[in-house]
């Protein structure tokens, strides 16, 4: 299983590198593409965790739907030619420091506690569609139904914002 450890590091490296590139890139289109790369890497992590269903949904929803929406917006508004809106160096520096402190705080918190590993993810079957589906439609039926209301709200909202009436 050494292989999976290597895979973890490779995927993590790709994800973090791409995530940083999202921030560093000057053109929105590049950011979008790097973000897609990050999403693929995270999808890889899901597979590594034996969560196949999530991996598939993740790729479909994020890479397939959300990123397409982003790309669409970039092209629709022709954002690539707008270029950067640079923040002052001080603001950038302060932000990086703040993020760094946040990271250290979180890691320090985690380090203080020995998380118990109860199961080997490569062996359990919970991530399979069959298992998840059963639970989703038994125990988590109500939030599932409610998420349809959420989608309806989002849909109505998006349509309303797109229309050209005053109200």
């Amino acid at each position, binding site marked *: 299983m050494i292989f999976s450890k290597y895979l973890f590091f490779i995927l993590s490296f790709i994800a973090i590198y791409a995530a940083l590139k999202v921030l560093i890139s000057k053109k929105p289109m590049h950011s979008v593409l790097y973000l897609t790369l990050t999403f693929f890497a995270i999808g890889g992590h899901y597979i590594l965790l034996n969560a196949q269903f999530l991996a598939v949904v993740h790729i479909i929803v994020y890479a397939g739907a959300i990123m397409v929406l982003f790309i669409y917006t970039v092209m629709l508004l022709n954002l690539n030619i707008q270029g950067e809106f640079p923040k002052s160096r001080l*603001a950038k520096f*302060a932000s990086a420091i*703040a*993020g760094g*402190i*946040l990271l250290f*705080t979180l890691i*320090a*918190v985690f380090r203080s506690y020995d998380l118990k590993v109860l199961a080997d993810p490569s062996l359990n079957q919970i991530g399979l569609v069959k298992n998840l589906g059963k639970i989703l439609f038994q125990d988590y039926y109500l939030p599932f139904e409610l998420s349809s209301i959420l989608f309806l709200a989002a849909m109505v909202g998006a349509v309303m914002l797109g229309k050209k009436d005053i109200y």
Partner: protein
Amino acid sequence: MFEYIWLVPLFPLIGFLVIFFNFRRLKGVTAGVLASIMVFIPFVISLFFFFGLMNGAEAKTVELFSWISFNKLSIPFSFLIDRLSGLMLLIVTGVGFLIHVYSIGYMKEDAGFNRFFSYMNLFVFFMLLLVLGSNYLILFIGWEGVGLCSYLLIGFWFKNQEFNNAAKKAFIMNRIGDLGFLLALFMLIHQFGTLNFAEIFSKSSAIPVGTFSITMITLLLFAGAVGKSAQIPLFTWLPDAMAGPTPVSALIHAATMVTAGVYMVARSNLLFVLAPVTLMTISVIGIATALMAGSIALFQNDIKKILAYSTVSQLGLMFVALGSGAFTGAMFHLTTHAFFKALLFLAAGSVIHALHGEQDIRKMGGLKDRIPVTFWLFIIGSLAISGIPPFAGFFSKDMILIGAFHSGYVLWVLSVAAALMTAFYMFRLLFIVFWGKAAVAADPKHPVHESPKSMTIPMSVLAVLSIIGGFIGVPALLGGSDRIQVFLAPLFSSSEAFLKHGAEVSESSEILLMTIPLLLILGVIFLAWSFYVKNRNIEQEEPERSFLGNLLYRKFYVDELYDTIVQKPVAGLSTFFHDTIEVKVIDRFVNQTGNLVVWIGKNIRYMQTGNVGAYLFFMVISIILILVLNLFK
């Protein structure tokens, strides 16, 4: 019969609602008559109650409905009718009714006639709530309510910006006091777990004298009283409050609302006697207020301002009485003061009415023969307030002075000085206004006229009360039976034990204590007479003269002597108190507090930069702070 006590506040409330919601529809004096009736009925009921109490009916708490109840704390909406509230009830409804009637005549031509009466009825309602409440919360609600009405009525003629400012000032100052009151309430809950008078007072008897928490509670309660009853340092709103119509000044700023502080302290006497420090503070603040306001009143020229400062001064005397443990004396003076100060205000209103709004006494004069009824009424009021026997003020002031004497000679001497000032400024006012020549030529278009019957009759009733009102408290020395002392004894007797008295006053020294001030007062009246009638020495706005010129101008050497030895220093002091202490220090302090808040408000809003990036950054910083501070202790 006390079960029907809820009828008493109900009528003014109905009156308020009816007038308020129909104030376009009611024509003529309907609203005034209606409002007066709505105060008269409670008055009649109160009379019944009062006689019931006189005949020994037991005090009773009437619970209307359960209002707030926690597991431990329960505050019913209930009224307490006992001898103290019975007396107050009578004053509020009785004097209130007379002033309502008077206002019908006084306000007749005002466009806001209906609005005025709706506020007046609302005021009476809240005042009754204040007086009748059986716990501090209802008292507080009444307390806030009368404050609100006072605010509405001071700003009644809101077209004038100055009046508006006066209203605002009254409001802010009262708020400062109320803050103390409110904190006292929370401390009371903390200490006793209840706000009911009966429970608190029964529990308080177990507490030793001088505990810190009781001292704090009483000091905070007193802070509330300072705001409401216009004592140092929160007294400056009352003179400014004279911007309102005169009946308002009579009802709210002389007879009832401003005495609420005195009532509250008297009601809580069992708490206050447990805190000697507070009692001393009350005495000191009371006497300081009495002297300061009295000396300011000496040389004011606005008729209503003089009366206002006089009210502040008399309230100071009442607090002196409270501070020295003479609770009966304070309540007695409160009662008689309600009569004669209301009378004086109404009479002043009548003068103003006769002169079509003139308030500067230097422009008056010689009104003696032109408005004789008002003149005689004014004389009665002045004699009563100055403490000339057998008028009401004599007896009540005597009781206060004896109370002060028990606390020490110094307090007594200072109280007598305050009483002397009272006599001087009242007679100065009287002589300037009614004697001498008319300062303004009679305007043929607006002749000076006597007020209508609806105004003079209530005044006459008050005048009668000012004459005979004192007889409820004639001391044993003069062959009376001191009925008020006996009447209120059930309320104050248990606190007597806590007060340490000085030596018992012998009969002969009591006579001395009574006669010395009286003689001095008569002397002061004579002084005023020689100043303002004999020599007619009124500082008109005249050209500046050199000292030499002044000497030549004033031919009488005696005058000069008075001038330099008595008048100049006193006038200087008077100006100093008014211009420096009141205007510069206290007003400025109050204004600065307000300005500070506004200034902070103005600047703190710049935190809201409008930039989302900044908002997000603040959020992250706060999150990190919260995490770090909580996790790495």
